[in-house]
């Protein structure tokens, strides 16, 4: 029976609506409770900001393509690793890498920023055991992973034939087989087309051979998701990512959700989460007249409550891009001609990895930076707009404190803008220079824990300090009533917590790892009757097309680290 009392902090908890009131937070046996006995360990949080543990809704931290990035980029360690004059060993294991950190650094670095849960953004089902092996070796963080469905042959066929129930049974089976949490869609149809060297750049481009369009795939998966009532909604990286003029394709994708309502028991309200929306908010016809489409996109998101998004903020770093959008990575490589890795995965998906340098002296990079911030600053409901860097695609997650600084301080934005070689062109192509909005701590809490947790359908466990939630707490060295005028101090406070508490255990103190308690793998367990047709189809495809036997495909129980199932019943 362990008890912990966090006294006198300024509490920011959007789920319960607490906006900086001075109060105490009590934790008993790993859960938030109303009160604890006098024997409880006490942490004095007076003059400090207290939030629930951070929740990352979209980050590539575990699995095959992340690891391909680590493997093919030794220079990410040599030149950009934080060891040079940086971190000495704090936890049990050494920390390596900058844009694609080792699993140990991933766990420790998130914990130091006050995060306790991450959602791995793309798990190729065939390679699921790899993701789970990395979870085992990522300390502290609770983790989940979304299998990718947007280029899956089973889904293509069921959706094309309008067999919703079969598609649902297949999705439920795959979530169980891979221990996944929800439905991820990456460049629907486009990655399958890439297996023949082609792409789908609009929602109406037919997928070669399969005679289905991205629009049909997305609608079919939204229907499937709501039929099952999964905790999270469909999580989309749409077609035509990263190209000038793509905001129209993005609006087309978002409109696909128009007729749908969320149906679930987890408090989720959206039916579509558009991830890293910055990469999908581009106007112009070429890189020469490239400009921001943030206003158009955010006007639509603001008006439609059944949509959530995360920003995918460009952080102006050298980083490593990686996505299941195989054709995009090839395309990007044709722009920068650095090394290129690609892995097409049989029947399911593909992926690519390309290093990328977001140079503040390149006009387009400056505009991309502006677009991400504009999206957040145009947003009316920050519970529906979350902070991410699409780690590591727009920048490493370790830059979240810097993103928070930019959002909280116009001065900080101006200072960064002033360092850009093509500042005037960036200003001309965006509205960033005219935006004086500065977000507060409550809004940051919405964007970094409450909003993502709600969108994931996990707000009863994470992202909240309400009674019964996991005792995950971040205490920042920030006096909410007297915020520093120097924005760098805001960044510093979010970089290293005064305390991070995971299930009632202090894991970080004064920015240093001091404990590595157990962690969970979250997944969605759908209880539904077995579907004979779907099981027949699965057996057939494994006999004829896969190169791994069906019986070896589902992740064995012994390879799932400390599972924690979110259960739901479908009649």
């Amino acid at each position: 029976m362990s008890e912990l009392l966090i006294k006198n902090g300024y509490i920011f908890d959007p789920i319960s609506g607490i906006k900086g009131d001075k109060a105490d937070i009590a934790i008993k046996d790993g859960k938030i409770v109303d009160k604890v006995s006098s024997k409880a360990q006490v942490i004095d949080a007076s003059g400090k900001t207290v939030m629930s543990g951070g929740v990352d809704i979209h980050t590539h931290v575990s699995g095959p393509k992340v690891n391909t990035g680590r493997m093919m980029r030794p220079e990410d360690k040599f030149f950009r690793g934080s060891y040079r004059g940086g971190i000495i060993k704090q936890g049990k294991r050494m920390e390596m890498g900058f844009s694609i950190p080792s699993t140990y650094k991933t766990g420790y670095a998130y914990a130091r920023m006050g995060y306790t849960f991450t959602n791995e953004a793309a798990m190729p089902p065939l390679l699921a055991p790899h993701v789970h092996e990395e979870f085992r070796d990522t300390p502290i963080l609770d983790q989940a992973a979304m299998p990718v469905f947007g280029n899956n042959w089973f889904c293509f066929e069921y959706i094309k034939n309008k067999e919703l129930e079969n598609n649902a049974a297949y999705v439920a089976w795959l979530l169980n087989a891979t221990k996944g949490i929800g439905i991820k869609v990456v460049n629907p149809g486009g990655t399958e087309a890439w297996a023949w060297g082609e792409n789908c750049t609009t929602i109406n481009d037919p997928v070669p051979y399969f005679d289905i369009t991205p629009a049909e795939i997305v609608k079919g998966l939204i229907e499937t998701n709501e039929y099952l009532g999964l905790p999270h909604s469909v999580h989309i990286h749409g077609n035509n990512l990263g190209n000038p003029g793509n905001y129209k394709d993005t609006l087309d994708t978002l409109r696909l959700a128009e007729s749908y309502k969320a149906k679930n028991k987890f408090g989720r309200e959206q039916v579509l989460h558009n991830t890293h929306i910055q990469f999908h908010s581009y106007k112009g016809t070429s890189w020469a007249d490239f400009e921001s489409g943030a206003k158009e996109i955010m006007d639509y998101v603001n008006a439609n409550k059944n949509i959530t998004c995360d920003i995918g903020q460009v952080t102006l770093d050298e980083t490593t891009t990686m996505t299941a959008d195989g054709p995009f990575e090839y395309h990007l490589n044709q722009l920068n001609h650095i090394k290129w890795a690609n892995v097409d995965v049989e029947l399911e998906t593909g992926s690519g990895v390309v290093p990328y340098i977001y140079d503040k002296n390149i006009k387009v990079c400056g505009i991309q930076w502006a677009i991400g911030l504009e999206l957040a600053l145009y947003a009316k409901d920050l519970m529906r707009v979350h902070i991410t860097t699409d780690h590591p695609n727009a920048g490493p997650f370790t830059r979240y404190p810097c993103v928070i600084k930019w959002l909280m301080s116009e001065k900080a934005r101006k200072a960064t803008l002033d360092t850009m070689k093509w500042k005037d062109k960036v200003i001309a192509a965006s509205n960033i220079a005219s935006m004086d909005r500065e977000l507060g701590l409550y809004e940051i809490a919405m964007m970094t824990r409450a909003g993502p947790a709600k969108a994931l359908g996990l707000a009863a466990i994470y992202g909240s300090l309400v009674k019964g939630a996991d005792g995950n707490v971040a205490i920042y060295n920030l006096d909410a009533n007297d915020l520093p005028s120097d924005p760098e101090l805001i960044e510093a406070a979010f970089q290293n917590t005064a305390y991070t508490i995971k299930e009632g255990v202090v894991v970080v103190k004064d920015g240093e790892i001091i404990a590595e308690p157990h962690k969970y793998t979250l997944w969605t367990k759908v209880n539904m009757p077995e579907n004979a047709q779907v099981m027949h189809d699965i057996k057939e495809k494994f006999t004829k097309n896969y190169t791994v036997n069906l019986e070896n495909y589902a992740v064995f129980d012994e390879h799932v680290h400390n599972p924690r199932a979110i259960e739901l019943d479908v009649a």
Partner: protein
Amino acid sequence: MPKVIENVGCPYCGCSCDDVRITVSDDGKDILEVENVCAIGTEIFKHGCSKDRIRLPRMRQPDGSMKDISYEEAIDWTARHLLKAKKPLMYGFGSTNCEGQAAAARVMEIAGGMLDNCATICHGPSFLAIFDNGYPSCTLGEVKNRADVIVYWGSNPAHAHPRHMSRYSIFPRGFFTGKGQKKRTVIVIDPRFTDTANVADYHLQVKQGHDYELFNAFRMVIHGHGKDLPDEVAGIKKETILEVAEIMKNARFGTTFFGMGLTHTDGRNHNIDIAISLTRDLNKISKWTIMAMRGHYNIAGPGVVWSWTFGFPYCLDLTKQNHAHMNPGETSSVDMAMRDEVDMFINIGTDAAAHFPIPAVKQLKKHPWVTIDPSINMASEISDLHIPVCICGVDVGGIVYRMDNVPIQFRKVIEPPEGVMDDETLLNKIADRMEELKAKGEA
């Protein structure tokens, strides 16, 4: 009643076949029958239930003989020597599961030593090329379902990966390749007329050591300079080069499989580098992928596991305690051994005594040498300490990575000989013992 176990993974080559059928005796100790396996795989399963398996660690005595000792003694001895050594090296891992490789990473991080795997003497040059040029690849099912042109360059699967051609590349009928071999064009590029060349549509008998030139010739054709080729390049006639290049350009989906015929001939990593460049060129006009023919069933494993642990796939220097370092040439096993930098050697899941150059083995032999391996081999016979372990895929399960980096979950089919530990348990015990000794100040 004998029991049939299906869907068993085979612990031999990089094909990591997972469709083996094993018939096990009543008591779960004997393997009676092995099906769906090549000749080599069969022998590994048979060896697993051999009555001659080593059951206890064996310590070299002053008179040169080996004496059985307990696992506890072996663990303590290894832990103490690891802590005492300034630059211990643990090398091998072709034949261990990923759980063992992760535990090995923990051991060498605590010991502050060097950690390397068999890639250092096989596909290390491929890693060097990947560092420079990337790796446009795919899973083997993509080849099976889509590929209409297959190139084997410097590899001979007919002998080294016996089921590769039938399971993945030339013969299987996949989704878009319903006619199997009939609709596939097979190109073998090898200085020898191998058994693989024997089934090819084209065998290009490249002059030994001149692969780079031939790659360059293909790139010239792809870039539109075919007519500038000399009459012959690397022993191949200009017309043949133009003809084969045309096939490559017109492929719907092509794959190049390359082996140690490229990594261990003149050019080494440069051969792989230009092979990747050719693949990149071909993707401008067609769809092409490339794949290393990794040798053992889990030799891709340590590269994968250590990349997520430390960020480097091989040649790891963990002596700096706070960060890892990799610099092949400086931190590669054979180079260190030749310079006599290593003052303790652990050979695990391989046979360095058989595979390393003799002068390197002689240097390593000057210092304490531990072999962790189920079998008697050359390394075990020159060791100071030989610790037997389970055989992955036979008496212990675990995850392994196939040559295309797809994780395959292996099964245990028989009980290990009584008392024999698996790699993961053994290595974690060594790590625990080192932590204990360090805490007591005995290190």
